[in-house]
């Protein structure tokens, strides 16, 4: 278990976590899609899954919903053993799939009516709930429009409305904003925080850094393994002093001069600047300046505030304490 996860449990001993998984693994033939993931998700928070495509985010979510049977490990969601008690869990969770999975040839209202009925909401209550959702998710003037004719952002909003129609305790969202413009994304996240405020636990997967930054807590997945987890502040705080900004006249050349230096984890160009991630905070910027001068380049070197991208790079290169702990536990 990572240090961050241990802290989370210590902080909230009264309520059991929404999700607890130990050694959760999934193998598809030769491919180890998810590799011994330990996970603790506290209630009423927005918990992020950050990772590149193919890092096992969707597979993990599907296992937690009971849609996929894990190859190994123990999963407990809302106090229910998964996959054994998956059927009982279905009434208590909402799941927003990565691909739009409502019916494109049904209207907004028809889709919601269908979902209300299959979620066992009594007829009268369903009508009130649907009216409220249509109002809240701003579908008032297009409730008779076919879902297939709407924009990406509108579809996502409808999918969210559909996923919460039965007011689930726990909501899984698999890359909910991957096909949505920035404006709609901001709007969408507002809705997620409203839900979290109302006591819903949300598990959101994403590959956007800015979205990950919004989460209360975060787990970073890489090639099926959980490499770091904690609050965004904890994760970036652990990298204090390791992020450096280099302003050089010829950034491409400077990048080549720095990339093979000992103690340099990565060098990425951001506009005219270079962002350098160091293996540890004690590595002096002086070394960088010297190397640049040796290559005949003028440059300004300054410490920078670490961000989640740095965390991600550091974690996927196996240099954070969290990841080291996770590896030890697996070994």
């Amino acid at each position: 278990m990572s240090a961050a996860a241990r802290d989370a449990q210590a902080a909230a001993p009264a309520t059991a976590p929404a999700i607890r998984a130990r050694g959760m693994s999934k193998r598809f033939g030769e491919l180890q899609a998810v590799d011994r993931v330990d996970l603790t998700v506290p209630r009423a928070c927005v918990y992020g899954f950050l990772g590149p495509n193919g890092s096992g985010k969707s597979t993990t979510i599907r296992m937690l919903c009971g849609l996929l049977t894990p190859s190994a490990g123990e999963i407990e969601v809302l106090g229910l053993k998964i996959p054994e008690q998956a059927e009982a869990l279905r009434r208590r969770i909402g799941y927003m799939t990565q691909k739009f999975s409502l019916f494109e040839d049904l209207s907004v209202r028809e889709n919601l009516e269908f979902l209300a009925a299959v979620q066992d909401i009594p007829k009268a209550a369903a009508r009130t709930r649907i009216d409220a959702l249509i109002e809240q998710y701003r579908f008032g003037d297009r409730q008779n429009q076919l879902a297939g004719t709407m924009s990406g952002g509108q579809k996502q909003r409808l999918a969210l409305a559909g996923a919460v129609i039965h007011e689930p305790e726990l909501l899984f969202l698999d890359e909910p904003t991957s096909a949505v413009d920035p404006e709609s994304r901001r709007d969408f996240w507002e809705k997620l925080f409203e839900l979290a405020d109302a006591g819903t636990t949300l598990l959101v997967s994403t590959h956007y850094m800015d979205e990950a930054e919004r989460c209360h807590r975060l787990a970073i997945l890489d090639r099926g393994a959980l490499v770091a987890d904690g609050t965004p502040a904890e994760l970036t705080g652990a990298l204090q002093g390791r992020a450096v900004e280099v302003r050089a006249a010829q950034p491409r050349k400077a990048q080549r001069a720095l990339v093979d230096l000992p103690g340099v984890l990565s060098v990425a160009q951001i506009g005219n600047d270079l962002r350098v991630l160091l293996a540890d905070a004690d590595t002096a910027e002086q070394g960088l300046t010297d190397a640049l001068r040796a290559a005949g380049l003028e440059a300004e070197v300054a410490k920078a505030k670490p961000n989640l991208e740095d965390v991600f790079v550091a974690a996927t290169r196996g240099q954070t304490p969290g990841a080291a702990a996770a590896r030890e536990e697996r070994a």
Partner: protein
Amino acid sequence: MKLRRLWAIVLKEVRQLRRDRITLAMIVMIPVGQLVLFGYAINLNPRGLTAAVADQAGTAASRALVMDMIATGVVRTVAHADTPQQLVGMLRRGEISVGIAVPPDFERRRVDGREVLQVMVDGSDTVVQSAAAQLAQTPVDSSAAAPRKTAPIGVVAFYNPQRRSPVNIVPGLIGVILTMTMVMFTSVAIVRERERGNMELLITTPVSRTELMIGKVLPYALIGLIQTTVVLLLGLWLFDVPVKGSVLDVYIAAVLLILANLALGLMISTKAGSQFQAMQMTVFILLPSILLSGFMFPYAGMPAPAQWLAEVLPMTHFLRLIRGVMLRGAGLLELWHDVAYLLGFIAVMMTLAVSRFRKRLD
């Protein structure tokens, strides 16, 4: 199973179907198209084959015999010939399909009981050949009083004395159309939801497998009944095909086949990975249903392995039921073997389909 959830699935299917103009059109176009195609074009008992007569005897009896043959309607004379050689020439040139040659010693042959007449046939078409074979069965003496040394075999066609194909084909066509559309619609309907990602959403809801399966097939069962009605009405109107038995029995038989095919479609949907595969498997079922069931070729004439295979197909049993009810006026109780088989088939397939369907992705 909860009625509200089941009804939600049915309503959803109906709403989707209502917006799917092409499928909606196919529901009516398939029966109409097939009926016209099979009813008019495919005629296994040809009538009005082109013929010529060379009557070298020219007696009253020979003329009467030739007239009897023409009266069957199987042939119609389009040319005149004086000698059998001329007939052969006409046959070779394709001017006629059938030549009727009466030898000069017709009367003597008749008395001796020898071959009195020759029917020459363009044997390159087996259907024409078999039609001519019927022709050769025409009784030599129309007057029953005259003693016959050779008793020509009279073919008496019960239930379809005019040997009109539509009478045989229309009842069977109900089966073909139901097999084609029902299996295809259901198998594709479920696979499509899987392809579009709807299934991933559905299986995370409390909907049960049985609700999902039954809710999906019910609207199609209704479509099947509409198609049955279209074929029956068109059959009556265009081809004068009667329903000798009870109409209720016809619909019960149709419901049995509809359910059997829907269950089969569901079974396919649990196997097929894509809509294309579902279509392929449908054709795989459809072809033997048309060829082996007795719809096109008589069941009795097939080799034993083909008969075993035919026995498995719901279509074979339906065909026995529907021909029995519509053409012979039989009741379903008299045909209980086939009713029982269809019921068993439905139960087995439905159970298999539901148990094979998992609310899982793996």
